[in-house]
């Protein structure tokens, strides 16, 4: 069965690119438009991997990660931040929030797949 991935980003173009790339590679992808939507979708689904943007309306990526980690089903699901900030401060915040890793924007589809394959095969 296809692995499921949730991609949370308020930018429709990035979302579509991520979603298209992952679907082409055979993953089942669900899109969410912001942190709150991501949380709702995560609650009502089951995902093997979650990508989230940091800067989003309603709920940002770090808050989303914190909230997800509080949910038993997502305690140990890999969650990666898509971020334009690769500063140490950002990373340590991500780590503190419970992120599994990060992927710097801009990235290309090949890089995305490399990461996904690395993380969930």
């Amino acid at each position, binding site marked *: *069965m296809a692995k499921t991935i949730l991609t949370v980003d308020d930018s429709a*173009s*990035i979302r*579509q*690119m991520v979603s*298209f*790339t992952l679907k*082409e590679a055979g993953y*089942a992808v669900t899109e969410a438009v912001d942190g709150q*939507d991501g949380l*709702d*979708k995560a609650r*009502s*689904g*089951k995902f093997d991997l979650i990508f989230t*943007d940091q*800067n989003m309306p309603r709920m940002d990526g770090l808050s989303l990660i914190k909230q997800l*980690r509080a949910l*038993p*089903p*997502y*305690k*140990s*699901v*890999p*969650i*990666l931040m898509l971020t*334009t*900030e*690769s*500063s*140490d*401060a*950002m*990373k*340590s*915040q*991500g*780590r*503190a*929030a419970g*992120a*599994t*890793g*990060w*992927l*710097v*924007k*801009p*990235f*290309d589809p*090949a*890089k995305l*797949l*490399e*990461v996904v394959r*690395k*993380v*969930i*095969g």
Partner: protein
Amino acid sequence: MSIDMSQFYQVFFEEAGENLAAMESLLLELDVEAPDLETLNAIFRAAHSIKGGAGTFGFSDMAEVTHVLETLLDRLRKQELAPTVEMVDAFLQAGDVLKSQLQAHQEGEEYEDSRVTEVCRHLERLARADNAEGDVPASSAGETQPAGTVEAESSVTHWRLAFEPAGIGQGTPDERRALFEALGELGRIQDIGTGETERCLWQLTSTAGRGAIEEILAFVCEPGQVEIDTIETLEAPAETEAETETAYGFFTDAPGLQGDAAFGEAASAPAPDQDELGYGFFEGAPGTEYGAEERTGASDSTPDQTQAFGFQAEILESDGYGFFRDAPGTEAAIDQEHSGYGLFGGSPGMDRVAAVAHQERLDDERGYGIFNSAPGSPESRLDDDASAPISTAASPAKSAMERESRAGNAPKRPATADSSIRVSVEKVDQLINLVGELVITHAMLADSAAGLDPVVHERIMAGLSNLERNSRDLQEAVMSIRMMPISFVFNRFPRVVRDTAASLGKRVTLKLIGEDTELDKGLIERLADPLNHLVRNSIDHGIERPEARLAAGKPETGEIVLRASHRGGSVVVEVSDDGAGLNREKLLAKAAKQGIPMPDNPSDKDVWQLIFHAGFSTAERVTDISGRGVGMDVVRRNIEDMNGRVEVDSTAGRGTHITIRLPLTLAILDGLSVRMGEEMFILPLTVIQESIQPRAEQFKTIVGKGRVVQINDEYLPLVSLHDVFSSGRPEPNLLDGILVIVETNEGRAAVLVDELVAQHQVVIKSLETNYRKVEGVSGATIMGDGRVALILDVDALVRLSRRAGG
């Protein structure tokens, strides 16, 4: 697999356009004196989003501009700088540059202009300025983003302070708050920890040295109880480059680690003992945030630890990525830093990643298998993974849901209130077209059934009336897809007014009313130009200079009101100003000079209509804002092209009021079908005022004006469809016909028809697309009996009739 990125361009263009528009309107509403943090954040987000997309899709010129934009915005939202009017101007200019760049990309070109570098330089200069080094309020410190990319000053250092509050007598939040604030005196302090009480992690951005920090800490604890490290900050611009390969910092906030030295090595040195691919192992342990027992456990199981740290930390770097490790023996705990992404060792989810990594090590296909063989069996990790909560769901309900979604292979998405999809306009238009056909089919069916006995064919009749209701509902629903709030046009005006007024040295405020009024997308797009012209005109010619206003006893600041509303089946858009108003004498003098015929005692309305004459401008001096004389006649033609009409009203000294009346949509029309001879015509309901049975004495012929009809002391031009369309048949007796009084742009007129048939909604089909443009006719429709009826354009009819008769 290679993915064609260009397929996402369109979405990016739309999204970037929306973000730019949002940014602009937020900037315009930003109160520089009392900036709203939420607004600043939203502006930042818009810029940030554009930057992310532009970078991803390879529009590096836009990414560069948004980067400098974002840098300054970031300082604003962090309250390091206070916004100024100059900044807002610079932001707006940057927005303009981005719009130009976006448009160029949409056309497959590159936008090259010196403006780009000018704007960027300006923004950079503003971002460097240090006008208000405001402290971040402690209350919001928890949420505040750490700096990281913004500080341009080289003397500023980011200090990371890690401690166990209970261990230094700072167990209560209040105690911590006091220390937090004390440290805040040195610069900007932020809580970057997890919020756990066992361990605190603060970041202090300050020009102060280690000594100053230790001095403050000395009040509460022994030296060494609080770990003080510096954090290197990466140069921000690297992020915007397409190649981020080398732009990685390595996160090594190791407790007990002599931060400066160890970190320095980690951050600056590439993998010391590895090849180009860059696999490297660093000493340096991340994981300050992890619970103590985790660390203890880790070191217990790894007897071969470096004694100095109590546990070993490694960074595996490959082709720019690396793995940090704080608990050897479990790949899960390795921080991995790759080119452009990284994984946090020991973080939630890593055990799953580790399982994969373990497999990869076995396969060793891509060379990820160079983890230190460490004590601790990966299998035990896998066991852990198996017992991870996800597979043993917390509640039966949850696991049921999981099963269900697994079975469905795609998790059911809950309907969210704001979920929407993007559909191309063509698809919607096709839908509208099909509904139009359905309406016509229904009309035909109804026509055929008209001859049936309703008692005998009761069920058919009932079915038909159901069909009618359903197709009307369907039609409305489909039409509503194309409807957009007029705010799409209105929203550009705050900027237009701001810029125009500023360039003319006038003070003008803009009031928008009824922005939610919806009308057809096609109309909205075509409304933009005429409105733009009217608004600029109002500012240029209507609103007086501040001195003149004060002298006239008016407030210094003029006001322009844009109002939209639904009235009957049409949308009314009004542009009014409280300026000087139109000057009757000037207009008449100008008309005389240009040889425009005017009645002896023209009404105000006649005079105001003069401004719509081609080449008619009363402005004494031509400005680049308006007044080239190509304005108002074009405005009127644009609006007439939309089946709309425009009226002017003005009071000297009080202002001018322009009213535009538009149909709701260009696809469907409420019309009255009229018969003339054998032909059917449709008159738009919006133009009809009344219809009367004429008497012989009402018809008169006036030299130079042709035939007229006298109605209540008013002589209206008579439009005979026979004349206009040269039916070729002899004209029937005038007294047998019916006069429909219509409102045109040149006043009222009477259209002579044989018979009024019925009122109905008709689907407008373009004659131009299907045949060619015919003067006097705005379109055609298919009637219930299958015949084609022409939709009359009364304005053109009057012109034609005058030509034919005169």
